[in-house]
């Protein structure tokens, strides 16, 4: 039985890598279902041999436990509301409000900065809820959307940064967010952990990470892939003369729908009517829209997009099959065994561990988080004693932000694909920016924030308070500064030679990963040269795993996929 987990983990990874490198050419959700079935067959053979037929008959129940209903239903209700807003003219009402904001002292750019950070401010339990509702609105800022305020390049940055912010906002959410999985474990030592000990580090690092994503999209992605986005610029003749902004009028139903939408969101977050599922609140809001704004039920249903739902469910199924057949236990043992490798040690292993979900980004962070947080918990005083409670909290902060942002770069129906679809980009266009920001900015920043603010005595009169604030500010400038420098230097060095560009990016990626690992090791073990060096090595390996788990160039195999015979 002890080999079962390793065999099934091997099957899962082999299938995913074969798909990734083009040896299996079917939709990913089909591959995930095949992986589920294979794992169950192998598991059934082992269980039959060990425990008899009764154990085999119970296996369907075990793997179904992998399906987490919450993100699926939250996404559906978000799409419901988006459909309602669209049908009732709510987006037009929002445009009118935004025009009012743009004419206020904060201007267009200030409005856009607030809009980009709106998902983390509202912190819903799934980023897709707000993304489904607001991405169509962001699209209208461009020439094709009708307003024509922003150029193609600006629209790419706006949509990419907003989606990054959204696909991470499930982390700091207090109503069933991913971060609460870790807060639950930390509650055994920090009495107030369940009130949100991880929320502030996540929100803080997401804010900075979002800004770096915006910069990455401007300096790197658009330069390397100039033709990957098929959005159109305004024609020269129109651009030359000042683009006359069309007069926008919204129907009264639109304003009402918008008010219902905002009240639903606030009720879901603050729960003034008592604890209740966020889905119920949002569906009640959608039904209220049907009555008050006179829209049809069909309008709500038209908002639903099925692919992310089925892809997410397929991911849960595959994870459920792995969990039922000890696959995650095997993964935990492999990671644990890395501690014995001399040049890695605990610091190096942790630097790889915290980046694990960006190495293997699945459609919903909860899939792996639910399996790996218990493993991380065991590294603390509960079992292995590699870390004390404070160190465990720091590592949890870094791990959780990396995990919650992993649905952004996931190609398996991840949230980032919503952004790519909205900006009419090739799949993969914004994902380099997302993985880089998660790896190099957010994980180390969350660790630093946890170390210097959340864990210190939090009183303005405390002399350490001012010192800690200074430390966080200094690290924010240092981490953002180094990475911005890398991006700017990289963009200046690019030329028409593809291999040259590739190696520059590889260098930047590996350097970013190493720095991230070193900072994490510093946050956990303070000034210990060996540990920091081990952390840097771990970060380097993690960056290599993130960076190279992709084919180096598109092969004929993929080209034949793109140009294969018509059905």
């Amino acid at each position, binding site marked *: 039985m002890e080999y079962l987990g390793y065999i099934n983990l091997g099957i899962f990874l082999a299938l995913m890598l074969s798909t990734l490198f083009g040896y299996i050419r079917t939709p990913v959700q089909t591959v995930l279902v095949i992986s589920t079935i294979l794992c169950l067959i192998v598991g059934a053979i082992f269980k039959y041999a060990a425990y008899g037929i009764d154990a085999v008959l119970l296996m369907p129940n075990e793997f179904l436990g992998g399906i987490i209903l919450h993100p699926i239903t939250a996404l559906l209700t978000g799409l419901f509301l988006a459909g309602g807003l669209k049908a009732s003219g709510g987006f037009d009402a929002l445009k009118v409000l935004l025009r009012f904001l743009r004419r206020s*002292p*904060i*201007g*267009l*750019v*200030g*409005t*856009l*900065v*607030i809009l*980009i*950070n*709106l998902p*983390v*401010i*509202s*912190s819903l339990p799934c980023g897709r809820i707000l993304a489904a509702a607001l991405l169509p609105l962001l699209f209208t800022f461009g020439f094709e959307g009708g307003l024509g305020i*922003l*150029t193609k*390049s*600006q629209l790419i*940055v*706006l949509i990419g*940064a907003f989606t990054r912010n959204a696909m991470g906002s499930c982390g*700091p959410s*207090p109503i069933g967010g991913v971060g609460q999985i870790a807060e639950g474990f930390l509650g055994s030592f920090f009495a*107030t952990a369940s*009130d*949100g000990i991880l*929320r*502030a580090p996540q*929100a*803080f690092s997401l*804010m*900075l990470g*979002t*800004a*770096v994503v*915006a*910069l990455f*999209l*401007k300096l790197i992605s658009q330069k390397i892939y100039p033709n990957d986005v098929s959005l159109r610029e305004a024609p020269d003749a129109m651009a030359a003369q000042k683009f006359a902004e069309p007069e926008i009028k919204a129907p009264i139903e639109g304003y009402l729908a918008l008010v219902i939408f905002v009240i639903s969101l606030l009720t879901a*977050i603050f729960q003034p009517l008592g604890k209740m599922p966020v889905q119920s609140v949002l569906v009640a809001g959608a039904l209220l829209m049907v009555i008050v704004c006179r829209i049809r039920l069909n309008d709500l249903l038209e908002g639903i997009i099925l692919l992310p739902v089925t892809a997410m469910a397929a991911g849960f199924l595959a994870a459920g099959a792995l969990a039922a057949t000890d696959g995650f236990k095997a993964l935990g043992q492999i990671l644990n065994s890395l501690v014995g490798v001399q040049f890695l040690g605990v610091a190096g292993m942790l630097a790889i561990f915290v980046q694990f979900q960006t190495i293997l980004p699945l459609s919903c962070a909860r899939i792996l988080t639910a399996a790996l947080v218990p493993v991380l918990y065991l590294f603390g005083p509960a079992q292995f004693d590699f870390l004390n409670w404070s160190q465990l909290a720091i590592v949890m902060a870094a791990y959780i932000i990396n995990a919650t942002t992993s649905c952004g770069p996931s190609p398996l129906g991840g949230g980032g694909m919503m952004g790519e679809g909205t900006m009419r980009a090739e799949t993969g266009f914004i994902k380099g920016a997302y993985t880089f920001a998660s790896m190099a900015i957010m994980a180390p920043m969350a660790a630093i*924030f946890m170390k210097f*603010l959340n864990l210190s005595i*939090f009183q303005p009169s405390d002399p350490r308070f001012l010192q800690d*604030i200074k430390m*966080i*500010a200094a690290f*924010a*400038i240092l981490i*953002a500064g180094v990475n*911005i420098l890398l991006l700017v230097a990289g963009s200046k060095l690019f030329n028409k030679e593809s291999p040259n560009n590739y190696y520059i990016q590889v260098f930047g990626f590996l350097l970013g990963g190493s720095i991230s690992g070193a900072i994490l090791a510093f946050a956990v073990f303070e000034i210990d040269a060996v540990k920091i060096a081990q952390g840097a090595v771990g970060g380097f390996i993690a960056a290599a795993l993130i960076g190279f788990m992709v084919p180096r160039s598109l092969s004929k195999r993929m080209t034949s996929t793109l140009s294969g015979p018509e059905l």
Partner: protein
Amino acid sequence: MWIVFAFVGILSGVIIAWALDMNSPKEIFQGALGGLIAGILMSAMLPH
């Protein structure tokens, strides 16, 4: 906590404004102002 959020809000607002090709001093200032508001709002939603 709002101090650090206000600080990083301003920092991120300036970076986003620059990434959006809005480089004039007025636009950078407006970006910083937007970031400041976003940072304070974000901090207000967190437990203290």
